[in-house]
């Protein structure tokens, strides 16, 4: 049993073709990859938005502190 399309290097090498496991799943992998990419941007948008909203609340205090230090 092998997850790849070959179990030995002894045959004609060019007959092996793809070396990676689960040959035949390339289209599914591509779809998963593209979903992960778009999902990352969506997650990052909400993460950044929340981060800035939180930081803006602290800004005036920090600015006043910096001015008083100077």
């Amino acid at each position: 049993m092998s997850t790849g399309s070959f179990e030995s290097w002894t045959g004609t090498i060019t007959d092996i073709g793809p070396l990676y496991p689960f040959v035949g799943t390339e289209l599914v992998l591509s779809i998963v990859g593209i979903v992960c990419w778009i999902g990352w941007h969506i997650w990052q948008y909400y993460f950044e938005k929340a981060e800035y909203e939180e930081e803006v609340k602290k800004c005036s205090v920090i600015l006043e502190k910096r001015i008083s230090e100077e």
Partner: protein
Amino acid sequence: MDNELASLGVIFTEFYYWVTVVFMFLIHAGFCVYEVGVSRRKNHMHTLMKNTMIIPLVTITFFYFGWWIYFAFPNGPGIVGGLLSAPWATPWSELMGPHMGGAPVSATLTTDDTAFWSRINGVFWAAFLLFSWTAASIVSGACIERIRSGGFWILAVLLGSFCWIIDAAWGWHPDGWMVQILGYHDAYASGVIHAIAGGFALGVLIVLGARIGRFKKDGTPRVIAPQNPWLVTIGLFLIYTGFWGFYAACNVPMIDVQAGDGVFFSATNIYLSPTSLSAITFNFLMSLSGGLLMAYVVSKGDAFWTYSGGLAGIIAASAGNDLYHPIQAMLVAAGGVFFMYKMHYWVERRFKIDDAVGAVAVHGYAGFYGVVMAGFMLWGYPTSPNPEYALITPWGNFIGAIIMFGVLGFLPGFIGATILNKFGMLRIPREIELVGLDVTTEILAEEESHAIVEAEKAYAHEVGLIK
């Protein structure tokens, strides 16, 4: 791969591109270091992250669609023909992964194609990919200290995995429509990387606006000087070093260039016209020197502009650096640096553009100039070995420069930034800009530092060191 000579040729080419990729990695390291050196301390970490995350985002999208665009779009599509088939470059192709050749994976491929692409696909993809990082990284520097990282990363994908690779398919492919019809010649990417990235940056900067305090009320610019000149120096030297890999990656290292029955092996440029590594080594160093010399003069010895001018000099001569005499390369570079320096300050004063690192000038104006100059200097030369394609002309390269800087650079940058701005995804809140992007990191560090001191005091009490 069944005879020793053919195998040597393919495996040498595979190794050649692999080495260029390693060198080109230094360009990105250089841009990261350089941007941090220019940014103010309150923005260091965000500046670094903004540029670093170009790497994964542009890489995966260049895998998903960028690579395919290069081979599918040389005809436009719709300008001189339709979409071309590129079965080795789709993300679901077997050849976009570890492969030993053999039976074709597509009806449009031969066994020889499969043997070739199974070896070359990954390294050739990576060489183009590193150009994509560079294009996005050029824009990154221009926008520091006020752009939202999320918005920038969307723009980075738009430029790095879409716009620039369309221009490569059109004007940096042996059969691109611009090569066929315009005789467009841009051997080392003055236009296809630098002018497009500079134009894109300008489009973004117009929408993004200047940093708070950058211009006086009457419009006079204030200088926000580079914060760490040593980091800027190291960054630019890394970029110079990586640029060697960039130049080598623009070549095909070894093919038979003799038409007819004869045999003559040579390196070629991307259009498959003969050149040599020796030629580009002469011209790389002479154009770097011409750029440095002129930048020193025109900026009156300013270190920031002298270093940047070295880079701009190479960029200004790159379009024709496969064919120029080294002294021509030096003079063309010097002219380009004078032009880009004057343009930078004129645009800054006239339009209040805050380009934090001079990216639009160094890459955009110098790149545009480089393409136009190559049209004059190489007037009547063949850009392609195909005798049916147009010869190089000033007007062909001038139209090409407008396409690179304006149509594929400035317009997508301006439109993309305008859309992001409408959704509030372009500029950081003004409050954050004032206190600095690293505000959370700084607060956390301060709190942690305070907590550690308190813990140490408590321990000292506990063991009786203090009362």
